[in-house]
C-alpha cells in the first residue's frame, strides 16, 4: 500500500512543478508590480524582481533535478562501479570511470575508503584517478546552477570539458606508472569479502531516496543560492560593469593560470561558487577564465589533498595537481581563444 503512495505523490507533484515553473515570470511580476505596488523601472524594483524570479527558478530546478539524480544514483552503488571497472586498463577504462564518476554517489569524506576499495580489487590507478577527478568536479548542483544562470550551452561545455580532463588526466597518470608513489600500506591492506547478494530495492524505495537527496542537498545549499543571487542583484547596479575586465578579461593572458592557481587551494561547494562566477562574468571576466576558476575550486582543494595524503605520497599528489590544473588551464585558454 505504502509503495503506491510514494509514486502517486511524485506523479501529482510533477505537473504542479511544471505549472509553477512555466509561470514564474508572470507570477513574480504580479507580486512585484501589483501586490507590492512598486514603480516599474526603479533600481530597487528591478533588483527585487530579479531576486523574486531568479531564486524560485534556481531552487525549483535544483529540487527537480536532484530528485531525479537521487533516483538514478540509487542504481549506481560504489560496489557496482568498482565491479564494472575491475581489470579495465586502457583508455576505455578511463572513459567509463569518468562517466561513472558523474552518477555514482560520492562524498569527499569517502574518498579514502573508495580509493582503497578500488585499488585493492584491481582497478588500475589511472582509472581510479579518472573516477576521483570526475566525481567531485561534475557535480549535479554545479551543472544545474550553470544551466539556470547561463543556459544549457555553458552547462554542456562544463560537463564535456570536465569529462575530458578526468579521462585524459587519469590516462596520463596510468601511463606514468606511479604506483610507487602510493603509500606501501595501501597495497598491504586486506579488504574483507564482499557482502554477497545486494538486496533488491523497490521503485517506491528509490523515490524515497530521491526525496531524501532533495532534502539533504537543498537544505545544505539554499543559503548559498540566496547569497549568490543577492550578490548578483546587488552588484548589478553598484559595481561598474567592466570592473573585472582588466583583471579577468579575455586579453589578460595570465588571467587563466592565475585564476587556476588561486582556485586550487580554495574549497567551496558548487552552490557557493557558481553565483560568484556569474558575478565575475557579468562584470567583464571572460567565460574561459571564469570556468577555469570554478573548476579548480571544485575539483582541487587543500582539504582534499590533505585527505589523499594518507594514501598518496607527496610527488603523486603534486603530479595529480599539476596534470589536473594543467588540463583546466588548457580548457580556460581554449574558451578564451575560441569564444
Amino acid at each position, binding site marked *: 500500500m505504502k509503495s503506491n503512495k510514494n509514486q502517486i505523490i511524485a506523479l501529482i507533484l510533477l505537473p504542479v512543478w511544471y505549472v509553477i515553473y512555466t509561470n514564474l515570470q508572470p507570477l513574480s511580476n504580479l507580486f512585484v508590480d501589483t501586490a507590492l505596488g512598486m514603480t516599474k523601472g526603479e533600481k530597487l524594483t528591478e533588483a527585487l524582481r530579479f531576486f523574486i524570479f531568479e531564486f524560485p527558478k534556481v531552487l525549483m530546478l535544483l529540487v527537480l533535478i536532484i530528485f531525479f539524480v537521487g533516483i538514478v544514483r540509487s542504481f549506481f*552503488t*560504489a*560496489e557496482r562501479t*568498482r565491479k564494472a571497472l575491475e581489470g579495465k586498463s586502457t583508455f576505455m577504462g578511463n572513459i567509463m570511470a569518468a562517466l561513472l564518476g558523474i552518477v555514482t*554517489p560520492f*562524498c569527499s*569524506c*569517502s574518498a*579514502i*575508503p*573508495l580509493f*582503497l*576499495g*578500488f585499488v*585493492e580489487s584491481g582497478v588500475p590507478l589511472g582509472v581510479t584517478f579518472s573516477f576521483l577527478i570526475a566525481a567531485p568536479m561534475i557535480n549535479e548542483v554545479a551543472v544545474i546552477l550553470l544551466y539556470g544562470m547561463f543556459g544549457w550551452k555553458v552547462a554542456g561545455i562544463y560537463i564535456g570539458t570536465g569529462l575530458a580532463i578526468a579521462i585524459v588526466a587519469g590516462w596520463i597518470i596510468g601511463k606514468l606508472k606511479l604506483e610507487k608513489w602510493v603509500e606501501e*600500506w595501501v597495497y598491504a*591492506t*586486506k*579488504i*574483507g*569479502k*564482499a*557482502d554477497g547478494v*545486494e*538486496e533488491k*530495492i523497490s521503485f517506491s*524505495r528509490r523515490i524515497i531516496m530521491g526525496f*531524501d537527496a532533495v532534502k539533504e542537498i537543498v537544505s545544505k545549499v539554499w543559503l548559498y543560492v540566496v547569497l549568490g543571487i543577492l550578490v548578483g542583484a546587488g552588484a548589478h547596479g553598484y559595481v561598474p560593469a567592466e570592473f573585472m575586465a582588466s583583471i579577468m578579461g579575455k586579453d589578460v593572458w595570465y588571467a587563466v593560470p592565475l585564476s587556476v592557481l588561486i582556485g586550487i587551494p580554495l574549497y567551496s561547494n558548487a552552490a557557493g561558487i557558481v553565483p560568484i562566477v556569474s558575478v565575475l562574468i557579468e562584470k567583464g571576466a571572460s567565460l574561459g577564465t571564469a570556468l577555469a576558476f570554478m573548476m579548480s575550486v571544485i575539483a582541487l582543494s587543500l582539504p582534499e589533498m590533505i585527505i589523499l595524503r*594518507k594514501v598518496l605520497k607527496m610527488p603523486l599528489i603534486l603530479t595529480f595537481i599539476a596534470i589536473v590544473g594543467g588540463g583546466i588551464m588548457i580548457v580556460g585558454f581554449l574558451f578564451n581563444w575560441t569564444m
Partner: protein
Amino acid sequence: MNIQVLGTGCQKCKSLEKATREVVAQNNIDATITKVEDIVEIMKFNVMTTPALVIDGKVVVKGRVPSNEELKQILTTKIYMI
C-alpha cells in the same frame, strides 16, 4: 547485540553514531556501541562509502544516515536493506 559505527570522522559519521545511541537508549535495546575510525579496520568490512552501520559483524547500512525511525526498525526487527 554488538553495534559498530564505521566512519573516519566526517559529519555524517558523527550523526549516525549519535542517532544510533539515541535509538538504542530510547528503545531499551541491549547493545554495545563502538565507533570504528581506523581505515584499515573499516576496509575489513569491505565498505567504500562511509558512514556504515554494522550489527553483529554484518554491514546493514552504508553511505547514508537513516532516519531514527528506520534505525529503530533495523535495530528492533533486524530487517534491513543495504
